[in-house]
């Protein structure tokens, strides 16, 4: 999904966002004030930007899936002048779920952004915003073989937990996890896909041996394979 919004927003972006929301929320104007204060500060103190490196926020939006959600969300981000640094959006159940790491060069506190998303709440989406601690936006440099673990079988409690425990106890980092309940009502099948990074010295065969016991215990099928990208 090409969501990157790197083009600087027009100078009147805050004006635009105000026009967008003014009828719905007078609180929008509170949002404008801190930004203006920052802008003035920057003029008075050239080092102000240096003192205030780009703030990053985690933005989570979820709501009943329909066409137009991404457009509504990114329109607001664009007009605010936010960058989308990293994002993942998908349908879970009937819900469209968006998780984004966003940044803004001037707005540093949650309050200054929060009200801008009010229109989304009004259209039935739930919006959560959290300020990241400095450095929280940097992807960890994970080294090691990437393995995919497929787990599937008749649905029963504890499939996710038992597999995750085997990995967690050995400090194996799960980097991606998907689960889905498939099949009919009479024979529900649980499917789980895990991507994990193996610590140095850990081989695919080791993971297979950890999973061997679980196959018996949970009566599920489990396969493990390397999906380390081919560097070409």
């Amino acid at each position, binding site marked *: 999904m090409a969501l990157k919004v790197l083009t600087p927003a027009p100078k009147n972006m805050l004006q635009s966002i105000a026009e967008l929301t003014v009828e719905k929320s007078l609180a929008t104007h509170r949002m404008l004030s801190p930004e203006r204060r920052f802008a003035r500060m920057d003029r008075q103190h050239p080092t102000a930007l240096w003192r205030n490196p780009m703030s990053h926020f985690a933005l989570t939006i979820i709501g009943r899936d329909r066409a137009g959600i991404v457009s509504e969300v990114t329109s607001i981000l664009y007009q605010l002048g936010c960058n989308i640094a990293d994002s993942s959006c*998908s349908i879970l159940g009937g819900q469209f779920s968006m998780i984004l790491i966003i940044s803004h060069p001037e707005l540093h506190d949650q309050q200054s952004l929060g009200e801008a998303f009010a229109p989304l709440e009004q259209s039935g989406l739930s919006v959560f915003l959290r300020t990241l601690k400095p450095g929280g936006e940097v992807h960890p440099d994970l080294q090691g073989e990437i393995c995919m673990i497929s787990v599937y079988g008749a649905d029963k409690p504890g499939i996710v937990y038992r597999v995750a425990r085997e990995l967690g106890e050995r400090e194996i980092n799960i980097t*991606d996890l*998907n689960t889905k309940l*498939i099949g009919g009502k009479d024979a529900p099948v649980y*499917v789980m896909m895990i991507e994990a990074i193996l610590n140095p010295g850990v081989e695919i065969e080791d993971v297979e041996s950890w999973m061997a016991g679980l196959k018996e215990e949970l009566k599920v099928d489990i396969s493990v394979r390397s999906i380390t*990208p*081919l*560097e*070409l």
Partner: protein
Amino acid sequence: MAAKEVLLYPNPNLKEMCAQIEDWDASVDILLQDLVDTMVAAGHSVGVAAPQIGEIRRAVVVDVSHSKLGKKQENHGLLQMINPKIIEREGQTVVREGCMSVPDYTGNVTRAERIVVQFQDQDRQLQVIKADGFEAIAIQHEIDHLDGYLFLDRVSSLKTDLFRRK
């Protein structure tokens, strides 16, 4: 002859359709050696295509014999290919690929499992070889570079779309 800098996207050379090499002059030998040197210098990567070092001509080198995956299969060792062309494809496999010209990103790409490729080797001899496994994937990836395709143009699924409906 020397290892060259590997160009990164958005360098426009990476999106060019490369020209067939018709006249085999000394520059072609130099190009092949530069490709080999660049491949080796890049931590012995498994392949480099001419546009990755700024030459818009149809030449690639592939050598999977030094890689962990390549060692597990029969392979042709160092292949120096001028005007390579895939003349047969068979089977389908999805692999996650990365590319030196697009750092920090990988994607799942659908490739043919087995290919037959014809090319002129470093001695100007016409060769037709069968390749499979990792070697076949590497050859397809490098030949894509000659047509201005990056693996980004071939991504067949997001890594999280395992459950996407047909």
